[in-house]
Every structure is written in C-alpha cells, then in structure tokens.
C-alpha cells in the first residue's frame, strides 16, 4: 500500500476512534453525573474533558478533529434548525482550540511534540490550561452567537471547574488502572 494512503487511513481511523471515545464518555457523563448539571451542556463534572487532554496530546490533529466530529454529532439537532453555526463553532471550540493551545505551547518550547520531556506537574498545568481554554472558547462562541440566558462572567466558572475536575478524575482513574495492572517487582534478592 502506498505510504500516503496508509497514513491517511490510519489518521482517519484515529479521528473516528477519538470521536467515538468522546461521544461515548459524553453519554456516560450525562448518565452518571446528571445531578451535577449546571445548565444545558455544562456540568460541574465533565469527564470527556479528560479525553481532550489525552486525545490531543497522544493523537495530535486526528484527536482534535475527532473531538470536533464528536461534538458535531452530539449537537446534531442544532444543524437541522437555524443554529447550525452554533453547532459548528461548539465543535471548533471543543476540538480545535485545545490543539491550537498545544501547538502554541510546542512553538514556545514548553512542550515536546513526542512528550519526551513532559513531567507530572506539567501535565497537571496542561489539564488546567486546556480546561480554561475550552471554557473561554465555548463561552465566547455562545456570547458571539447570542445564546439565550447567557451570563459569561458567571457561567464560565462551572464550565472551567467541570472541565478541570472531569479531566483530573479521568487522569487519576487512568493512573489507578495503570498502577493496578503494572507488574510488581519480585523480591528474590532478599
């Protein structure tokens, strides 16, 4: 198979994987944390934000495009009415903005593209940066497109907290699983 074709197929597969994971965890989040919902589409705990960090860092652009596709799928009802632009921009804010933030950090030399120099404190900082960037981008989109009943100075906080808490829950869940499945060293020496 020609290299460019194989590369294209692999990136398409990764994009769809990213979209499926995001949509799946969006549904799961709505089911498990329905009591934490602040307003439509905003929850005090938003687990898919964890996938924003993981998928954008690991998959790069295909991960970001998958997040955007996933967001469009979730907002598919908006595309049928006169809110198509809102649905479109929600996807851009949720997927492309984190990727742009990552690219900016890479350009400044703060983040290695292959994550070789990434440390745990940096990952925690990145989680907060992505949570803030996504919350600001969504609120700005909603403000510009005049979403009803919006108070950006108040609504931005639940979204930021939800993104940050959800992402931390996901990352620590991932850590718990890794600690659990990692082979323990033997003690034959003593």
């Amino acid at each position, binding site marked *: 198979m020609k290299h460019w074709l*194989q*590369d294209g197929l*692999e*990136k398409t*597969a*990764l994009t769809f994987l990213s979209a499926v994971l995001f949509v799946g965890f969006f549904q799961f989040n709505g089911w498990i944390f329905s009591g934490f919902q602040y307003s439509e589409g905003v929850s005090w705990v938003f687990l898919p934000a964890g996938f924003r960090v*993981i998928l954008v*860092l*690991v*998959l*790069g652009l*295909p991960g970001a495009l998958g997040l955007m596709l996933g967001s469009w799928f979730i907002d598919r009802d908006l595309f049928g009415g006169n809110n198509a632009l809102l649905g479109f921009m929600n996807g851009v804010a949720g997927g492309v903005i984190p990727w742009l933030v990552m690219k900016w950090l890479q350009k400044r030399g703060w983040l290695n*593209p*292959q*994550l*070789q120099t*990434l*440390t*745990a404190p*940096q*990952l*925690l900082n990145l989680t907060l940066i992505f949570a803030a960037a996504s919350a600001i981008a969504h609120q700005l989109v909603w403000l510009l497109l005049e979403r009803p009943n919006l108070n950006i100075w108040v609504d931005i906080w639940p979204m930021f907290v939800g993104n940050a808490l959800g992402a931390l829950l996901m*990352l*620590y869940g*991932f*850590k718990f699983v*890794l*600690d659990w499945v*990692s082979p*323990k*060293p033997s*003690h034959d*020496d*003593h």
Partner: protein
Amino acid sequence: MEKNHSAFATAYLRFLQLAKVVQALPDGQEMDANELALLESVVLRWYEDQPMTVREAIGLAALGSPATLHKRITRLREKDMLSTLNQEGDRRAKFLIPTQRTLDYFQHLGRSMQQAHKGLAA
C-alpha cells in the same frame, strides 16, 4: 524523527510516554526528605537483621526530637511504608519493619541506579 513512524506507531509511542507521566502523578503518598532519612535508618537496621524498636527510632537524635520522630513514624505507617512487629513473649518491644511497598520502592531505586550506571558506562 516523526516522519519515520506511521500514525499508529507515533500515537502508541506518545501514549506510552503519557502513561509514564500519568503514573508519576502525585497521589499524596510521597515522602519528604526527613521521612526518607528515617525510613532508610529503619530499613538498614532491618537489613542487618537487627530491626529497630520504636523506642530506638524516636531516640535518633540526629534526625529530630522524639516527638517529631514519633509523628514521622506515624506518617510512614499511614503511607504503608512501615509496619510494627511484636516479639513473641515480649509485648512491650515493638519492632519497625519495612512493608512490601517499601521493598518495592527500594527495589525501584536499585534498578534506577543500575540503569543510570549502565547509561554512564555506555
């Protein structure tokens, strides 16, 4: 470098890097330098088949006052780095012994030292 790898391989290698970082996330079980110094003293004595009693440990004046050392022992026990053992026939003497977690920790340090040594030699 990236051009040599397929998209799947690049994603997998980045995933491995991220997994390593995620495993290093702080979980409140880290030891500070003072706790580590006390743990090393206790484990050394255990390694020499002369486990230290709690009374001996709180008497290590070079590491702090008895009250401070007692708190440190409590914290190390809460972090599952130390456990106590009573000698048969003498319930008063309480010996401090390392836990499995401590043995894992020192084994990890030993392996890291070996790897670093190999890296320097190469």
